[in-house]
């Protein structure tokens, strides 16, 4: 097991903030709606929100009801509900998550966002991207750090204070 400590994570967050700023300026998106995916994405979104001194309140998305593996694994009973304190309709959304892996979480998140309204656009910001593991045609617009890991390695974000990334190895795939 390896840990990536807060110091390094700070660097990734700085990279993300810079990239996000460029992303928004290039497109002229003045007032984006930032939505963090529970729970790791919310912590990252909060960090970005602070870093960019954004005014609009943060949204928090829980994709528990939109997962595609519900029949296989069911649900966790304690689910902090989704809270989107702004209008999705016609808004430029920045979706934030901690780890982009297969892409299924993002697909579920997008489906859920569309149930709230029709956004003008959705951009994706992730702390860690594992590009080798993608199973759907989804890519990040903002990436803190790209990691190339083995299939039997898993990365998990712990938080909210202090933020730490844990990479574990399992015996099976």
């Amino acid at each position, binding site marked *: 097991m390896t840990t990536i400590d807060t110091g390094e994570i700070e660097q990734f967050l700085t990279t993300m903030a810079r990239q996000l700023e460029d992303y928004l300026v290039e497109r002229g998106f003045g007032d984006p709606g930032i939505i963090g995916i529970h729970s790791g994405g919310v912590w990252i979104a909060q960090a970005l929100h602070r870093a960019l001194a954004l005014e609009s309140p943060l949204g928090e998305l829980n994709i528990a*009801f*939109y997962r595609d593996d519900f029949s*296989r*694994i*069911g*649900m966790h009973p304690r689910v902090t509900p989704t809270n989107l304190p702004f209008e999705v309709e016609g808004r430029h959304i920045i979706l934030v998550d901690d780890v982009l892996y*297969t892409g299924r*979480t993002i697909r579920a998140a997008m489906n859920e966002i569309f*149930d709230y309204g029709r956004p003008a656009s959705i951009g994706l910001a992730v702390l860690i991207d594992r590009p080798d593991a993608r199973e759907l045609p989804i890519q990040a617009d903002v990436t803190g750090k790209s990691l190339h890991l083995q299939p039997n390695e898993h990365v998990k974000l712990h938080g909210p204070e202090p933020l730490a990334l844990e990479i574990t190895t399992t015996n099976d795939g």
Partner: protein
Amino acid sequence: MTADNIQLDDQGRLKHFLSTEGLSRQLLTEILDYAESFAGVSGRAVKKVPLLRGRTIVNLFFEASTRTRTTFELAAKRLSADVLNLNVDASATSKGESLQDTLHNLEAMHCDMFIVRHNNSGAAHFIARQVAPGVAVINAGDGRHAHPTQAMLDVFTIRRHKPDFESLKVAIVGDIMHSRVARSEIHALKGLGVNDVRVIAPRTLLPAAIETLGVQVHDRLEEGIDGVDVVMMLRLQRERMHGALLPSENEFFNTYGLTEKKLRAAKADAIVMHPGPINRGVEIDSRVADGNRSVILQQVSHGIAIRMAVMAMTMGRKPGGEEAEE
């Protein structure tokens, strides 16, 4: 004390929801927690989540009930399932033939879940034993045996007002003998750690050996609701005057009807509940039913969240159980 609990699979997860009896505190709490999650869905503009998309849920009602059926239908639709409503006349054919044949026909159509209401105790158990593996059965009320979703939405309501189950005193008043709600309520409350549960009724409306379910028995209302946190009134059906169970609704109201005056015996912040539909002036005074201690309307709205919860729990249970993928 029950025979092997057919509601649970070999990993202790809910595969049918037939009764609150014999369920662990952990499982009962899980149902309440799931319901909390689903409660939010009904408040959104898009009141649906895709959890049970593509599944077919059949409302198999052998006993008419618009209210219960509608709540189950709404719950199923909010989970994006397809719903089939079947109202079968239980008396139409002889002795359970309709039950067997109806089931076999429906099975041939590959339905995923049956929600069953029947006037015979044990009907839901019977159906659960007949269905193919993987098909879930939810009991929407069987005879006088159980109405588990009602009991769960009631304890859900209680938890929102008074979350410390261990310290609660709960009184259930009325026709206990014929009440499936009362029985399910008692099992759920005891299962969640409520030690002090009272049943209050005239002797003619108390079933034999009810104290073996772990309740105190009272035949005087004021005595029974003395110091309680929750007063639950049960509906009294007109038929009870026949069969010499009660002389009149009037006398019942005078002795057991909940009025503001009688309610003073309970705690100052006690809540008043009723599974509905209410018989105003029979078991409860209008002023109490509509008063500020009454949580009756909340009970109704909680019904959908609880039903969504048990539907999701019984269906999201295929073999595997691997970790979630990101």
